[in-house]
């Protein structure tokens, strides 16, 4: 019986992240539109977009291989597994120990590997430019992410996300320089990984500056629907990660009573909502960068995370 409940809670988390993903995207778009003095599409529009795309005919190029057709499902699956392993409303779920934070970063790397290959499959200039730039961004963002993982792991003494969250809630970790630097770096990496301004513009098309959109340019119909859903899921994943690592409060840590779970769920949704409002505010206040300015932006994130790790190696007190 206890096993079934545990399994149910894990399943609930898997469903939760998938179901709220388009909504979160809808909220960011709505807030952004309001900040730009537009009315903007309704917050439920992303659900309708995905539904619409699912019922459109999928057009494949003559020379598209099986990689092109399998990649969307694989990308979605890898992102989904990663998102389901970040603690959202409760720690120590059934499978929380099967992958730690390093494995999570690597899973996202797996998804990116598939996406970059899909971009190159048909053999267009746009697909190539997208994949090439994605690789460049990843080669700077991923090391920064690993160093963020190091920082958090050195403070908490573990790389298990669930255990990190528990430590940060129960033990008096306090405000730390290293965690501040790690938060800054994580925000920069999250912006780059989710193709948001100032790195990439999710609303752009037919521009030489696009990265993510260039890779998926050839996709249509149900394949595009799955890719869009995966992109939304990735945004939720990064929001959950920020929430879980830096504001884990409210999460159900001990006995999984209905009250604790409800509190965890409520606080999780509130945190995600706040982040979904903050992101477009940040986006509207800066301009998009030129491609070869990215190394400066991501190098900053890398330097901040590296500084945090160095400080922790020197003394655990930072």
């Amino acid at each position, binding site marked *: 019986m206890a096993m079934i409940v545990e399994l149910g809670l894990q399943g609930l988390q898997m469903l939760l992240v998938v179901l709220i993903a388009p909504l979160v995207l809808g909220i960011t778009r709505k807030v952004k539109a309001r900040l730009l003095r537009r009315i903007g599409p309704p917050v439920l529009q992303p659900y309708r977009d995905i539904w619409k795309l699912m019922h459109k005919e999928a057009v494949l190029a003559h*020379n598209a291989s099986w990689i092109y057709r399998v990649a969307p499902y694989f990308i979605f699956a890898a992102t989904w597994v990663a998102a389901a392993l970040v603690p959202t409303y409760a720690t120590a779920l059934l499978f929380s120990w099967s992958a730690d934070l390093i*494995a999570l970063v690597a899973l996202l790397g797996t998804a990116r590997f598939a996406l970059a290959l899909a971009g190159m499959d048909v053999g267009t200039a746009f697909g190539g430019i997208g994949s090439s730039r994605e690789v460049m961004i990843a080669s*700077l963002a991923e090391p920064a992410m690993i160093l963020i993982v190091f920082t958090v792991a050195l403070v908490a003494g573990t790389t*298990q996300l669930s255990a990190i969250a528990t430590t940060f809630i129960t033990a008096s970790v306090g405000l730390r320089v290293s965690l501040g630097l790690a938060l800054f770096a994580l925000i920069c990496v999250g912006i780059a990984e989710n193709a948001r301004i100032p790195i990439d513009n999710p609303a752009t098309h037919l521009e030489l500056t696009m990265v993510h959109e260039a890779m998926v340019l*050839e996709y249509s119909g149900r394949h595009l629907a799955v890719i869009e859903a995966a992109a939304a899921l990735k945004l939720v994943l990064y929001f959950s990660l920020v929430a879980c690592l830096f504001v884990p409060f409210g999460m159900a840590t001990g006995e999984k009573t209905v009250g604790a779970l409800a509190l965890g769920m409520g606080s999780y949704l509130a945190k995600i909502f706040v982040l979904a409002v903050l992101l477009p505010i940040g986006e509207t206040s800066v301009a998009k960068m030129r491609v070869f300015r990215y190394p400066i932006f991501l190098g900053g994130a890398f330097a901040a995370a590296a500084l945090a790790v160095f400080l922790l*190696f020197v003394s*655990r007190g930072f």
Partner: protein
Amino acid sequence: MAVFVGLGCVAAFFVVSALTLVRGPFGTTFVYGASGAIALVGLVVGATQLLAGTASAVILPLGLAGLGGHFRIDALSAFFLTVIDLGGVVTSLYALGYGRHEAAPMRVLPYYPVFLAAMNLVLMADDAFAFLLSWELMSLASWAIVLAHHRDPANARAGYIYLVMASFGTLALLLAFGVLAGQQGGYAFDAIRAAPPLPLAAALAVLLCLIGAGSKAGLVPLHVWLPLAHPAAPSHVSALLSGVMTKVGIYAFVRIVFDLVGASAPWNGLLVITLGGITAVIGVLYAILQNDLKRLLAYSTVENIGIIFVGLGLALAFRANNMGWAAALALTAALLHVFNHAVFKSLLFFVAGAVLTATGENSMERMGGLIHRMPRTAVACLVGCGAISALPPLNGFVSEWLMFQAILVSPQLPHWGLKLMVPAVGALLALAAALAAGCFIKAFGITFLGRPRSPAAREARETDGFSLAAMFALSALCVVGGVLPGFFIDLLGPLVQALTGDVLPRQAGLAWMSIVPIAESRSSYNGLIILAFLIFSGTTTAIVIHRFATRATRRSAIWDCGFPLAAPQTQYSSSSFAMPIRRVFGGAVFGLHEIVDMPGPGEMRTGSFRVRVIDPAWRFGYGPLARYVGTVSLRLNRLQFLTIRSYLTLVFCALILLLLVVAAWR
């Protein structure tokens, strides 16, 4: 018993080699079939010895007078025997198909079994004389195969540089053994172990060993021969050179530094970690710039060797500070990476060989779209690329993950130099991992995806059954190693115990077959569950989509924003894919020159774009060194044209001088 079977294998290899000289029935199929069978016996010997955990030794009346030939298989030898003979078995299987395409088979066949025999012999040698002799035999046999296509001037140059570097490395090892043997001259490994060297001698031996073994393994800045020589050989031998022979270099380092030298100062670890981190990043940065598929793989070998040396260095540092459990973790990570790299690098060289025979092209700039022509090879290549990019749930990720776990326990080191260097190296490793993924996205994407860039690529044919069998065997190992890593970690247990005095917790009994290197509250990873999760969520998504979405699918021309260009040259090419990386790291690391010659409006000449990348090791190290040696020998050239009187005077002066030196020494 085991050591006799091992030596029997070596003898059998030599017999096979001798039989090739008798023409007729003893051709390609015989040599590779027999070598594969013998290597299989060696593999069984290694694996059983590793499982049994006992040592088996013999002293043969060979070699130096008063020394004899010592041979021994202990846990360390057994592990490396397993790795090397596994490589031997699959390479021979692959060569049963691939070897038929060889234009001049007699330039490869006689040396191939000798090369395998020499590598086996290095691992079994238990005294310095046998070790150095088989080491040199290994170098020479591989040098002969590197020169198989010697009419190409580039290959001749590669062979020359390889010979110089290999001799230099052997010299360093010779000196290292000299230092270790001490004044009594005990050259048997037992005698060296019984009389541990003084701290100064130990430090000198570690340095010399780092040069000797590092030059064979490809440690920066001793790596310059590797990206030249490895691609020059026929592809199945490239797989042996890159996947297997570099591991013999690692073995020499582990044997000398961990086993013979014994306790060493913490700064030794610091040096090894630093060199390893630099090697990893330099190797992968050069790999991503290459347009030649085999050269890309060779540079990626340099990267992986760097990762392994980081693990070894961490293990040394931990051991010097009496943190046995952490040393065990780092050493396990390094040795697991040795095995993993042997598997996926051999696989990728096999793929490169298959592509090379199918298209006749080395350069990725003239490939593309091969996934349609060679679908099975493409699947094997995809698994290999994923594994080498450290993607879960494949095997490359496991060793990388263990390495990061080892780095995360290193703040407990008391030594300040290490405290500052380890996080920097951690950052370098993370950078190398991310760049490696990019590098293999490029390798797979440009070679197998897109549209064919040359008629040869358009007409390519799938490779033969033997080659495919070898590739799929290795792909299966990549998956099994990633999904059930606990089994492999347990196998390394006795060996790690012997070298560090500690061992990782036993993984076999853990629930769900996950791996837990230190404690469950600290970190755990489960490749099996990740794979199951991936399959579950992937199929769920596919079912949901196919249930609720329309299945209507139409094939059409490429869209490409409405302006598709028919010429395949309009695709992204290998060098354009690497351009952002080249720009970002170019100035700092490569000494990059981009020469653009763009004709003005109205001019009829063709434009050109050239990229020149010079390895800093050549620019600051070997180039000036070679020039200096040239200048000095030009000056000394005058000595060749003296009169007999001057020569006699010179000889006399030299004699007096040497006698004076001896007198002063006493």
